[in-house]
């Protein structure tokens, strides 16, 4: 039972991270019907910029004196960095292909993904890059179950981000415009919504969330690697599909489920095949209910 609860906690942590990445896929797909293959790389870039900034702060000795400020700064700057990266990528590689076939855009996205992960490798090296310090060591122990401070921090942070995103999308004028653009770009233009700006914004938000997830993964596992974006990227995409692609609530739920399945699969079935479970779910969902658990109708549940 203790083992089960421990796994549950780990699963929630991982699921939250997947949910953050999945949101980027789902939002971009919702607005321009493109699987943004480079999204996993935004996540990896986030992990790297996070480690660079935290190491820098640690090198200056600021980590000892103001750990929370350093962490907050790192999160903000990293999210900004990735948003900036994503907006540029969108302008360069996706915007000119908006009216081309979807295959062209998809291949372009694939190219961007390969490019970015190799750019990370060339600038940061092929080896794992460790996160500095023992910032969040320790935790609460309840018998055999441990909840680390880090897990609490990650889950809290995830919840904060998810709630803010929900407010942004469902309560603000910008969010309304985003949903309108997702439903009908021509009509949006006819009521003075510039779809290119909205699409840029969507990319920026998605990448920002992925960047936050990148730092969390770095902190959680202690290191980052240049190709770390690939597998979590596909898993998060599976989560987005599972929740019904284009559906924000669905992506959150899907991320949580994929995280749980992975942790429980690894814990109770086989650790070696933990990466397979997410794919099996993806394939099963696409086969039996392609609209996902939350998707009512693919056409009009986007964003």
């Amino acid at each position, binding site marked *: 039972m203790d083992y089960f609860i421990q796994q549950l906690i780990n699963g929630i942590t991982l699921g939250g991270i997947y949910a953050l990445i999945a949101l980027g896929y789902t939002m971009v797909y919702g607005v321009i019907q493109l699987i943004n293959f480079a999204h996993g790389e935004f996540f990896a870039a986030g992990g790297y910029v996070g480690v660079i900034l935290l190491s820098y702060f640690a090198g200056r000795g600021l980590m000892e004196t103001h750990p929370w400020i350093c962490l907050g700064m790192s999160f903000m700057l990293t999210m900004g960095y990735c948003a900036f990266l994503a907006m540029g990528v969108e302008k360069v590689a996706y915007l000119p292909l908006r009216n081309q076939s979807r295959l062209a855009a998809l291949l372009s996205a694939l190219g961007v993904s390969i490019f970015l992960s190799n750019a990370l490798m060339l600038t940061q090296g092929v080896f794992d890059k460790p996160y500095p310090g023992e910032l969040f060591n320790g935790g609460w122990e309840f018998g055999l179950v441990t909840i680390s401070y880090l897990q609490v921090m990650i889950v809290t942070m995830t919840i904060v981000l998810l709630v803010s995103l929900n407010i942004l999308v469902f309560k603000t*004028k910008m969010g*309304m415009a985003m949903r309108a653009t997702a*439903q009908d770009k021509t009509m949006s*233009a006819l*009521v*003075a*919504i510039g*779809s290119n700006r909205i699409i840029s914004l969507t990319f920026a938000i998605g990448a920002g969330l992925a960047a936050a997830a990148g730092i969390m993964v770095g902190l959680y596992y202690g290191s980052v690697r240049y190709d770390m974006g690939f597998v979590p990227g596909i898993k998060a995409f599976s989560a987005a599909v599972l929740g019904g692609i284009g559906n924000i609530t669905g992506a959150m739920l899907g991320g949580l489920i994929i995280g749980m399945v992975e942790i429980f699969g690894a814990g109770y079935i086989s650790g070696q095949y933990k990466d397979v479970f997410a794919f099996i779910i993806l394939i099963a969902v696409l086969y039996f209910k392609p609209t996902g658990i939350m998707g009512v109708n693919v056409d*009009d549940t986007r964003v």
Partner: protein
Amino acid sequence: MTDPILELKDVHSGYGSIKALKGISLRVYPGEVVAIIGANGAGKSTTLMTICGIVKAERGQVIYKGQVINTLLPEKLPTLGLCQVPEGRRIFPRLTVMENLRLGAFYRKDTDEILKDIQKAYEMFPILGERKNQEGGTLSGGEQQMLAIARALMTKPKVLLLDEPSLGLAPIIVQQIFNIIDRINKEDGTTILLVEQNANLALQAATRGYVVETGQITLEDDSTSLLANPKIRAAYLGE
């Protein structure tokens, strides 16, 4: 007469290699209701889409209030007072009626005025007030058409372009819609450019009319003369 508020000079446009407009020229004067009639695929809707910049004009000019607008981005135009209610209504189906209306006022910053205008829209179309929290996609065709017009009015248009407002609606609803169009023109002084397949209806509502055939204007006249024209009666009024 005064200067035209909207003028097309030899406009060519199309989709890829298919040329839909082959030199359209027309003028709309302030306060008028002008109808464009023609058969299916003659280029009526493309004309409106070209005015709004959704379809790019390859040649020629679209001039609005003395300014060439076919180089502007489509999303600029509603802010200048040029708004279209496109064919098939194109309500945002998963947004509520209220949200649809607020999106019409997307570029406006005057929050209080927007709320007032929304109230005005509910007065004009009481059914929308009743359904303000319902999603647009659940409305009936006539209600959607009303919502589309109301949404366009939220942009405070000087010129309103209407594409097939009667399409797929019951005759009684069509009559209501045309009464409203008349009201918009008379009360707010909004200039209206109306595209219709239902030539009879359109010409009765309009002061002037243009006939479009295969991407070109073939006839231009007062609507009374057009209605009396035997050719028009034969081709578009089914006599």
